[in-house]
C-alpha cells in the first residue's frame, strides 16, 4: 500500500490499464505532455508515446465522437473532458451515440471499453462554469453507466473496473478532493464492482445516502447527529446508473428513514429518482418522508458557494427533522 491522493490514484489506474491493454488510448484537451490541467495523465505520454496519450483539438463533441469511433472499432478509449461543465457540447455524441450504439445495431456494434473521465463539483471557488454536477442528465440515458468515486482508493478501483466494463461509462471525479483526499491505495491492480453501493457505516435510526465529494459532508453530519444520540447508517452509492436499489432498500427497511444528499440542484436531481423508488420498495417501513438535501435550483454561484452547498449543517438539521417527524 502507498499513500496517494486521488489524482495519483487515477494516474496509477490509467497506467496499469494501459500496460495491460495495448490498444488503450488516453486523450483530451492538454492531456498529452502537460498531463492534463489537473495532472491526472502526468507522465503517460512519456511512457506510452504520443500515439497512445495525446492532446486533441479543443472540441468536446469531437473528442466524444472520436472516442465512439475508436471504441466501435475495438480500441479501448479513455477520453478526458476537462471540466464536467464542458461536457454539454459532447452531449449528443454521448447520449445519442455512445449510449445507443449497442441497442440501435442489435449488438452488431458497441462501444464497450469507452470511459469519459471528467472532474465535477464545486467548493473550489470555480463559479458556475467550473462547479456543476451534471450526473442526472446522464442517469436518464439507458445504455450509459454513471460512476462517482469518493476517495483515492475508490477512484482507482472504480476507474479500472469502468475501463474494463463492456459498456460506456461516464466517470465523474470530485475535483475538490483531487488533492485533498489522501489515503492508502494498493499499488497493484484491483477493481471495485460497478452497480454496487457500499455501506460505509452501520447505524439504526436513519440511512444517509450520497456519492462522491458529498460523502465527506454526510459523514460529518452523522458525527454531529451521533453526539445527539442519533445512530446513522451511511451508504455510498458509487454507481448512479445502474444503481443498487437492493442495498439502499434493505438499509431503509432497517432504519425506517432515508436522507439523500447531492450537490446538483434539487429539481430533476437523482435524489428524486431514488426517493420515488425507495418509497415504492419500503412504503410500509418508512417512519418519515424521505428527505433530500441538495443544491439550490440556481446556477452554481461564486460568492454564495457556502450558502448554496448542501453542507453538513443543513444535513444535520434534516437528520433531526426526519428523526423527530
Amino acid at each position, binding site marked *: 500500500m502507498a499513500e496517494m491522493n486521488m489524482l495519483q490514484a487515477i494516474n496509477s489506474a490509467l497506467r496499469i490499464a494501459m500496460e495491460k491493454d495495448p490498444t488503450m488510448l488516453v486523450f483530451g484537451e492538454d492531456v498529452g505532455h502537460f498531463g492534463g490541467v489537473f495532472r491526472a495523465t502526468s507522465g503517460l505520454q512519456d511512457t506510452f508515446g504520443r500515439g497512445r496519450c495525446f492532446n486533441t483539438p479543443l*472540441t468536446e463533441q469531437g473528442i466524444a465522437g472520436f472516442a465512439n469511433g475508436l471504441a466501435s472499432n475495438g*480500441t479501448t478509449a479513455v477520453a478526458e473532458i476537462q471540466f464536467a461543465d464542458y461536457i454539454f457540447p459532447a452531449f449528443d455524441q454521448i447520449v445519442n451515440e455512445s449510449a445507443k450504439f*449497442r441497442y440501435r445495431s*442489435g449488438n*452488431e456494434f458497441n462501444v464497450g471499453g469507452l470511459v469519459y473521465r471528467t472532474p465535477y463539483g464545486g467548493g473550489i471557488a470555480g463559479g458556475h462554469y467550473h462547479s456543476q454536477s451534471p450526473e442526472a442528465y446522464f442517469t436518464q440515458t439507458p*445504455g450509459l453507466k454513471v460512476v462517482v468515486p469518493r476517495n483515492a482508493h475508490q477512484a482507482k478501483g472504480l476507474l479500472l473496473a469502468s475501463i474494463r466494463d463492456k459498456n460506456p461509462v461516464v466517470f465523474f471525479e470530485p475535483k475538490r478532493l483531487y488533492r485533498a483526499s489522501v489515503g492508502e491505495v494498493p499499488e497493484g491492480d484491483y477493481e471495485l464492482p460497478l452497480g454496487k453501493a457500499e455501506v460505509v457505516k452501520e447505524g439504526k435510526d436513519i440511512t444517509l445516502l450520497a456519492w462522491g465529494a458529498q460523502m465527506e459532508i454526510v459523514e460529518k453530519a452523522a458525527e454531529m447527529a451521533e453526539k445527539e444520540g442519533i445512530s446513522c447508517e451511511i451508504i455510498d452509492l458509487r454507481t448512479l446508473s445502474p444503481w443498487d*436499489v437492493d442495498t439502499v432498500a434493505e438499509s431503509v427497511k432497517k432504519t425506517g428513514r432515508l436522507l439523500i444528499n447531492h450537490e446538483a440542484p434539487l429539481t430533476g436531481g437523482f435524489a428524486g429518482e431514488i426517493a420515488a423508488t425507495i418509497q415504492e420498495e419500503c412504503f410500509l417501513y418508512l417512519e418519515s418522508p424521505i428527505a433530500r438535501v441538495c443544491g439550490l435550483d440556481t446556477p452554481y454561484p461564486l460568492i454564495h458557494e457556502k450558502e448554496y452547498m448542501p453542507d453538513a449543517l443543513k444535513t444535520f438539521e434534516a437528520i433531526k427533522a426526519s428523526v423527530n417527524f
Partner: protein
Amino acid sequence: MSNASTNQETVHKVSFLDRESLHIPILKILQADGTPYEQAVLPQIDEALAQRIYDACVFTRVLDERMLGAQRQGRISFYMTCTGEEAAILGSVAALDEKDVILAQYREHAALRYRGFTTEQFMNQMFSNEKDLGKGRQMPIHYGTAALHYQTISSPLGTQIPQATGVGYSLKMKGERNVAICYFGEGAASEGDFHAGMNMAAVLKSPVIFFCRNNGYAISTPTEEQFAGNGIASRGVGYGMHTIRVDGNDMLAVLAATQQARAYALEHNAPVLIEAMTYRLGAHSTSDDPSGYRSKEEEAKWREHDPVKRFKLWMINKGWLAEANDEALYERYREEVLAAVKVAEKIPAPRIDEIIEDVYDEPTPLLKKQLESLKAHVKKYPQAYPKTAGRL
C-alpha cells in the same frame, strides 16, 4: 509563438481573399455519351468490377422504385432513395478494400449492396422483423452489419463524421492496412460534428476518406442557403487536407479519385476529402415532396446527367453489356424484391424479451423487473399488443 502552418509571403497593401481565389477544378472522365474525354486517365477497372458495380446500380434502382411503392401502400413506414447518386456511392465503394470500414449517413444502401447485403437482409430491416440484424429498433433504412464492415446508421446528422476519425485512428494504431470512409451530404457539413471530425482527422493524422455527396438539397434547403463558400472542398483545404472535387455522376471519375484517395490515406496516414457534385433526383425521404421547393424542369435537366445511364453507355461501348441483358436484369431484380417483400412482411416481430436486450451487455435488475411487469400486462390485455402477445 510558433504558427508554422500559416507562414506565408508578406504584402504591404491590403489584399483580401475571396472564395473564387481558391481554384478547385472538377474531375470528369466520362462524357454524356459514355465515351471518355480525350485526355482522361481512366481508373483501374476490368469487366468483372464494372459488372459488379452495374449490378448494384440496377438492384438499387429497383429497390428504390419498389420500396417507394411499398411505403405509399403503407407496408413500410419510411424510405429514402439514392436515385441519382449511384455513381457517387458505387464509384467510391468499388475503390475500397472489403474490410475498409464504412460510416454512412443514410442514403448509401448501394454501397451496402455492393458489399453483399442480401435482398432478404434489406427487407428484414425495413419490415422490422425478428431476422433484422438491428432487431427492429430503428426506422427503415438504418442498416448495419459488422460482417460487411458497415456501421449501423444513426439518425442524428453528422455524428458519423468524428466517429470516422476515431475508426481511422483505431485502424492505424492496430496496424491494419485499412481506411475508414465517411459519407455525408453537404447539409450535414453545417453541423458542428463536421468541423470537429475533419479538424481532428487532419491534426491527429487519421486515415479516413471523407466523402461528401453534394447533391444540391438538404431536405428542402438548396446549397445557396446552406453555405456561402466554395462548396465543401474549400474546407478540406482549410483543414490542411488532401482534397479533390469530382463529377459525382461520373462513375469512373469517382472511382479514380477514390482509388487514389485510398492509396494516399494509407501511405500518409492522413485524411482525404472528396466532394462529389451530384443531384438528388428523388425526394429527401418519403415524408418530403420536392415539388414544393424545386421545379420539374430542374429535375428533368438533371435526368439528362443520369449516372447509371452514362456508365451503362460506357459498358455497352466496351462490349461489356447488351441492352437485352440489361432489361432482363431489371426484371429479375423486380421479381426478386417483390418476392422478398412478401416473405419479410410475414416474418414475426422480434419477441418482447428483445426490448431490454443490448441496452447494456447484460440486462440490469431494474430492466428485468420492468420486463416482467410489462409481460404480465401484455398477458392481461393480449388484444392490445398483437405483435408480441402471441409469443410471450
